[in-house]
Structures are given as C-alpha cells and as structure tokens.
C-alpha cells in the first residue's frame, strides 16, 4: 500500500501495564506524533502522553459570567425596567437576588464544562481513520492501542518502524487514512 494512504501504525495490547510500558519507551525513543487508546482512563498515561487541561479555566470564567449576568438582570429588572413597590420592600432587595445568582453561576459553568470538553476533543467526529482498523472495535472493551501516526518524522526511518514491532504488542497493524 502506498504510504500516503497510511494513517498510523497500530500496536495492540491486552493490559494497561503493557500499554504503559510501550508508550514510555516510544516516548523515550523520541516519537512525538502518537496517541493512546484505552477502554477506560489509565492514570499513568497522563504523565506520559503530553497535553494540557484547560477545562477548569473555561468552567471558572463561565461561572463568573453566569453570576454577573444574573445580578445585572435582576437589578435592572427590579430597579430600572419597572420599579414597583412589592410588599413594601425596597426595589433593590439584593438578599432575595442571591439564589438565582447562584443557580445561573452553576448553570453557565456546567454548560461550559460539557461543551468545553467536546470542543477540546473535537467531538462529535463520527468518521476517523482509527475506525478503519477492525480490531479497534475492542478498544472500547478490553484492548489497548498505541498508534504512531504516519506524520511523525521518525516514521520515515525504516529502522524505527521495525523497532516498533519489538515492543511486545499482540499485533502490529497499519491503519489506513481513508
């Protein structure tokens, strides 16, 4: 098959430990463009696989936005849009405005967390080269995959490719980029 049709080399493992070990060595070897797939979050990978986590920041800022929105809305409506004497209470009865402020804070933050995560992960993404690999179906059950992408500069070196076969994977297969 012609290399430009190749997306990545897939190494299949049957245990998290094997996966972690392989990923470590791949990294030490100097590979950069690789991704690891597991049926559940494997803690150790977080240290190995590079990447940041901006979700908390998104949530925080959205929360602040929510709080401000709520307060401004309530104050504007009660004091400016239709100032009216309700039960002899002052127009700006701010203590009564707190609950809604809290709720909107949470609402905005929660939505940010959800949408933020999807955007970061680039989901929804129904079509992806990895699905070309039939075995990948088990990645959501009991198999662990390490995929070194074709665009990794190291992949051009033939030795390195062969080196991958020595990592003790159950199987090493090529993933087409159709």
């Amino acid at each position, binding site marked *: 098959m012609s290399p430009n049709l190749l997306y990545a080399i897939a190494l299949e493992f049957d245990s998290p430990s094997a996966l972690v070990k392989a990923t470590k060595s791949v990294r030490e070897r100097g590979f950069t463009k690789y991704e690891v797939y597991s049926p559940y979050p494997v803690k150790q990978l977080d240290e190995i696989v590079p990447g940041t986590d901006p979700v908390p920041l998104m949530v925080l800022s959205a929360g602040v936005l929510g709080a401000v929105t709520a307060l401004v809305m309530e104050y504007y409506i009660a004091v400016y849009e239709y100032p009216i*004497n309700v*039960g*002899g*209470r002052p127009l700006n009865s701010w203590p009564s405005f707190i609950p809604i402020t809290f709720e909107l804070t949470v609402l905005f933050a929660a939505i940010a967390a959800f949408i933020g995560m999807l955007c970061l992960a680039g989901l929804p993404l129904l079509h992806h080269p990895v699905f070309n690999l039939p075995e990948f179906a088990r990645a959501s059950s009991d198999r662990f995959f390490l995929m070194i992408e074709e665009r990794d500069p190291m992949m051009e070196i033939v030795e390195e490719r062969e080196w991958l076969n020595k990592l003790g994977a159950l199987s090493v297969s090529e993933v087409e980029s159709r």
Partner: protein
Amino acid sequence: MKSQSQSGFVPIEQLIAAPRPRHWQTVEQYEALARGGSEEYCEAEDTPLDEVSRRRFLQLAAASFAFAGITGCTRQPPESILPYVTEPENVVPGRPKYYATAIPVGPMAQGVIVESHLGRPTKVEGNPAHPASLGASSVHSQASVLDLYDPDRATVITSLGQQRSWEEFRLALTNLLGPVQTRGGGGLHILTGSVASPTLGAQLQAVLKSLPNAKWHQYDAAGPHGARGGANLAFGRPVNTMYRFDQASVILSLDADFLVTGEPSTRYAHDFAARRVRGNRLDMNRLYVVESTMTATGGKADQRLPLQYSEVEQFTRTLGETVGVPNVTAASNARYSEWLGAVAKDLAAHRGSSIVIPGAHQSPAVHALAHAINAQLGNIGNTVVYTDPLEQEPTDEVASIGELAQALRENQVELLLILGANPAYDAPADLGFPEILSRAKTSVLVSLHSNETAEWMTWQIPESHPLESWGDARAYDGTVSIVQPLIETLYESRSPIEILDAVLNPPGRSGYDIVRAYWQGKSGRNDFEAWWRKSVCNGVIENSALPLITPALATNWAAKLPNVPQQQGIEIVFRPDPYMYDGRFANNTWLQELPQPMTKLTWDNAVYLSSATAKRLGIAAQHRVELSLRGRTVEGSVWILPGQPDDTVSVHLGWGRTRSGRAGNGAGFNAYRLRTSDAMWTAPDLQIRLVGGTFPLATTQLVQSMEGRALMISDTVDRYRSDPDFVKKMTKDPPDGLSLYPKWNYTGHAWGMSIDLTKCVNCNACVVACQAENNIPVVGKDQVLNRRAMHWIRIDTYYEGDIANPRGMYQPVPCMQCEDAPCELVCPVQATNHSVDGLNDMVYNRCVGTRFCSNNCPYKVRRFNFTLYEDWVTESIKLQRNPDVTVRSRGVMEKCTYCVQRIREAEIYAQVDDKGLPDGTIQTACQQACPTQAIIFGDINQPDSHVRKLKEEKLDYELLGELNTRPRTTYLAELRNPHAETEQA
C-alpha cells in the same frame, strides 16, 4: 335536595325570544315615549343593550384568548360600536346616572338610589333622604337588582300553558267581569300581600266600592301578625309602632331581631349604633335580649336570656307586674326572676328613655303587654311612638286567607285574582291549599316568577319588578316614595296597579299615568308638576310620613289577655328568614349564598337545636331528621345553634321552594308544611325523628370559636373607662426597625379603613353590596362545601362564653391592604403589588394562579377562581355587571381592593371637573351599604379625615398586628355595657 350553582345557568329561549327591552333614562323621555313619539326613543335605546352585549362578547372572547394566552401574541377580534341614532339629552356614555326609587319588601319599602349605566340598572344604594335608609341599604335592596335580571322570571302571559297576548287577556277579563259585575262583584276574590302602597290601596278600595260584593283578602306569610293582634288587644285599634333607638338608653328586646330582620332594621340598627357610641363611647346604651332562638341581635346583647317562645309571654307578664302595670299578675319563675328583677330596675331607672320591643311574630299578648309596659315606663311619645297603620286595610291576615279558603271550598269563587301572593306555597297548611285553588272557576296570577301557585291558575301574567315599573310605597314611618322604573320592562310584564286599572277602567292605562293621576288628585296642588318632579327626583314625598298619634289603652284590656300557654314537649318556632323573607327571594343567588348571620350557612335552612337538646336526643349536626307536628312532617338537616334555648326547634320560613327557579328549587326544606292557621309562629309537642344519614350543610365558617386568640377584642365600657389604653396593652405591635429593610413611606393619598366592631350588627349588607359592586360570582352549594366561596368581605362570627348562652362576636374582614403585604412578596409574576397610594393592587390579567399569595395571606381574604365561576352565558345576568370592574376569568386570584374603581374614577373626575377630593367623597361599597356606618374609609394622610380620627382612637388595633404586616384596615375594639346586677343574676 340537589345543590344549584349559578354557573349552571343556560341561556333561556324565552329570554332571547322576549321583545327587545325598551330603555329610557329620564321622566321626560318617558313622557315622550308615552305621547307616542316613542319610536326614536325606544329604538335609539337599542344601543345600550348592544353596547352591553358587545362588552360582554369581548369578555367571552377573552375566555378563548385566555387559552391562547392574553399577551402580545393574541389579536383582538373585530369589535363594533353602535352609537345612538338620536342621543337622549344629558346622557354621557361612560358615566353612570343615578335615580331615586324605592324597593318594597312586604308592606314596607326602603328608599334607594340606583346606579344606571346606559339604561342598565347595575347597583342599588341607599337614599340618604329616605328615613328608612339614611343612605344605607338592606340586603334586600342590594339584591333586588339581581331579581330584576333573574333569568328564571316569568316572561310571557300564559293561559293553561298557552302563550297569550295582553290583548287576549284583556278580552278574557272583560268577558269574565261581565257576569261578576251583574252580581255586584259577587264571586270576585282578590288576594294580595299586605298593601301599603297608596295607589294600589286606593284602587282596591275603588274596586270594592264599585263591586261591593267582591272580596279582598290580604295575606303576608311573614307579616307582623302578632303586632296587629297586640294593637287591637291593647288599644282596640290597629296602630303602627315605631321605636326611637337613638333616644333609648336601655332596651329590652322580647324575642325581637330588630337589628337585622325586617325592613325597619336598617334604620333601627343605625339609631341603635349611633346611640351606642354616644359621648366618646362612655355614655353607652344597654341592650337586654330575651329570645327563643339565637339571632344577631341576641349575639349583640349586653345581657341575653334564652327562653322558649311560650316562656317569653310568661316573662313579659311578670315584667309587667314588676314595673307595676295595673291588673297584670303572673307567677314568677325562679329561673330568671332575679335577672328579670334587675332588668326591671334598670328599665325603671330610665323612665322615658327605655324601650321594650316585642318581636313582630310574638303573640298578641306579648305585644299588648309591651305596649302597657312602655306606657308604664313613660316611653310612649318619647322612645316609642305610634301612627296609624301603614296598611290601607289592616286585617287579621290569617283569618283573611282562611275566608278565601272557605270561599274556595264552597265553590263561591268565580274569578280569583292573585296579585303577588303565593298561597300554594306559603298559606297555612291546614287550609287545603294548593288543591282548593283549582275550585276557582277562573284564576289569574300576577307574579314575578311562575311559582307554585302558577300551576293551579288559569291565567298567569308576569309581574313587573319594582325597578321596571311605576308605583309608590310607604316606609316604616309612612313616608311615601314614588317607585320609578330604571329600565323598560324586560318581558311582557305588568305591575299590579296596571292589572287593577285594567279591571277598574278598561282598557287600562300605563303605570305612569295611574300613579301620576292618583297623586295629582291626592296632592291637589296647583304646582303639581314641580311637586311631582321633586318627589320623583328626591325619592321621597315631603312630609308624607304618617302623623303621630297617642292611642289610649283600652279599658280592661288586661282582662282580655289569654291565659299563659303551658309549654309541653319540644316547641317549634317559625321565623321569617333574614334573607329569603317569606320565600320571595328564593331564586336570588346572592341571597342564597349569603352566609346566615349566626351560622354562616348558605343554600339551605336548617333545624336549629341547642347542643344540650341535641345531645339528649342523640342528634348531631347535619343529621337528617323528620319533624312531625300534628301528623304533618318535613325532613331537614340539623344544625347546632349556640344560645338556642333547650327543647326549642327553630326553623326559617321561605325555603324548600319547588317552583322558584333553578337556584331556589330544592334549596332547604319547606317549613310552611308544618304551619297551621292556629299556630302560625310556634307550636308545642314537636316530634323529632332521625331518618338516618346526613345531609351536608354548606357553611362558610366551620370554626366559630376564637381558640383563645385576641382576634376580636371586646370588653366592657367600664374597663375602657377605668383603663382607656387596655387595647394597646393587649396587642403587641412589633417595634419599628424590626425589619431588615427601611419603611416605604407614602406621600400624597394613603387610603385606609377603620372598622368599628361596636357598631357591626352582622346584617351582611356589606357582603351583598360588595358582590354587586365588584361582579363577584356565585359559586353554588357544592363549591361552598369545597371551601371556595368568593365573597371579598366576610363577617367572621365567633361565639364567646357558655355555649348555652354565648355572646356573639362580629368581625367584618375585607382585605387588610397590608403595607408590608406577605402576599405580594411571593407572587412570581408581580400580579399583586402596591400602588402609589398604598393599595394592595390585584392585577387579574397578570395572574397565573399559583395561589401562593393566598397561602401567605394571614387573613385568608384572597379568593380564587378554581374554575369558570362567572356566568358568561346568561344574557340577562350580564346586564347587571359593573362595567368599571373586570369580569374575572378562570384561574385567577381576586380580592378586595377598597373598590379601587371608585377611587380612580373619583380621582380622575376630581381633576377633570376641577373639584377637590374632600374626605368622604369616595365610599367603598361596603361602607355605603353599612346601616351603622361601622366601616369608614378615607385618606389617612389627610389630617382631618374621619378615618384618621378613628385610627387615633385608643381602641384602634391591627388584626394580627404582631405579624408586622402593617395593615391599612384597622379595627376599633368592641365595647359592651353589661349591667352589674344582671351579671350576677
């Protein structure tokens, strides 16, 4: 007995088919109408009706919008305006006009002023110029406007089920009268109620003059039979007795409910209350009540003694003896002798300024004795005055109806003419009515409804309601009012005077001509025109009150006194219903749903029993029992009445109608079935039998004890004298600055209300007035049972003290218009909030119906339209609605707003007409109706306003003030004036 609900009304074909009403506003127009230049008027007057149906149509449409949501996103349906063709002069569309007239109930009438919107009478108010009203109004006056629009009224002339025309009837009449006249009137019998109307009376006398053999029978089932008998007994002649409560320091009521029942009650309550608060409340009158059932008057008494009906006579004799009435002796009764002694002493101590007033239905003996006692106490001419009787022909009515029955039985009746009476329903049970009615060869009934009597008649003529016909009537003191119509007759109806005129001088004239002609002759003035206009306009004929007379006691009257009846077994007492009177108001849904003063019952009468007697008989409230008296029986539901004397069953007449209309039919039981001509008001040896099962009675107040809470503060005048601040000490108002928030201060107007509990006598006129003013729907018995009654103001009635003889506590509760209103705080959509002048506004069209406001209202004065209570179907009912008040839809909360529509109108026209808003210009409906002026409304920011002054009194207190709701409505604690000696007794 099934329960009715007004919302069950459906449009009536006859009503639609009935000829278009012909409206007119003023006398002038009417005359034009009469002159025959009528067309323009009557036709032009089409418009008001269309105007009405148009407005109502929108309300109907509003219902359908409601479902789409009354917001920006609903388009209004195209609506049309129908202007006059020729505008009557001095009509300003959009501003009501007011006309004086009078509402007769039985022989007596109350002068009223009726509000009219483009020819629709909508609201009845008292006439300040009228002695029986002084601006206030009775429940009957208030409710009469609904009677006018009653969809169940008789609408067409019928003969044996066939619809006939007036012409046909006149023809038939002349054919009938022919033979009668040849016999000099023999075989002609006329039955009326007690007649006090001068015109009608004169007509009847004229008939008897021209047809000497004709017979005129009078029968008013709830009339003052005892009083007539008593007068004859004491003076040997009929008299009309009047009492001047404004001059009486000590009052002894012998079974008289003079504050609430009967027509003069409006005036009597007014005088009584005025006298009660004299001299800054320190110079207070004292009320003793001896009575055979618990009445509102009894509850108000400073001292009360429950006695059986028969014992009252015994008591009176003993009293007579004690105060020294010559040749009256009696065996004293240990049970009350001491009490009686003290009362007698108190009466004697107030010679000339005391009153002994017997109940209208008490025995002639009691009345005679009362006359003598008053004479003995020097009250006659001072607090008790006499005039000639109001009736044209005062007769022994029981005997009179007896004679008619006799004549019927003997088939002597060729032509029976019944004007307004209903013998088939209310005649004494032993006379054989209604069956014997069929023995009359021809019988003609003139009545508002196609009632029980109608089905025995050969002819039935719809009677015109006082608000749609000409006539005249006398007040309790004889003052005459011209009754003028507010609207052209709605149906093919005639007034009694028109009928009689058709008999006297065929073909008969219009009511207007008859009345006018009569007074032209009577007054005999050359400036008649002006006099007539003035009289009609003012609603009273000047100095037409009957002159005072001083009848002398007949010699040896005492000897003629019957022996004191010996009471055996359980005694039954018949009472006219405070609202239904003799049953003529049975189809008036306002009165049906108006809570009875002491029991708060609606839609039913009940068998009243004392708790002790009930226990003894093993009967509990709402048990169905059978009352049997001399083989006659009725079934009713029991109610335990605190303060009811033991071994006494009291029942209200006027219920259990079968042909009153949809609202009245089947409501309550018919006590007339037990009533015989020899025992009209009481009878011994009543048998009570449980028939098993219960029948629910709908009361609007289930708990009548205050549970030890200081809700209605009431104490003796002595306490007040010694410790003027006792009220302030009792109530703990939270200190200012208790709240987290600053106070909201009101510049400009600040509307407020003060309710004087000393003055409230529980007549419930305010409740009906409010209902009429604010388009408050009637919900029907089933909904009342579900605790969904809609009255915006209620009179909470509590009992205090021994259940065998408690005091009654009356507390009117409208919306308090709290400044820190709890209800507003919890409304999610701002449907209720404060106006600049501190009213607790209720915006019906904004309400989504969470009902949280009601939960959070400590006074529970908010009412909710759980379903569509307003009648949006019945055409005639729509005519009554007040166009200035939104007709509420289903699912919205509603409540009292101090009649905000009146406030806003007044504010607007005060500026438009550049006149100020002096204190008292704005009256709430309840205030206006209140006979005793217990309710005062006004601007509390205005330094000299009446309400402000009242609120500054030491007796002023806030209901539940400790909740810091800061209500704008406050109360003046009740003061009572018990007599130390009788207290011990």
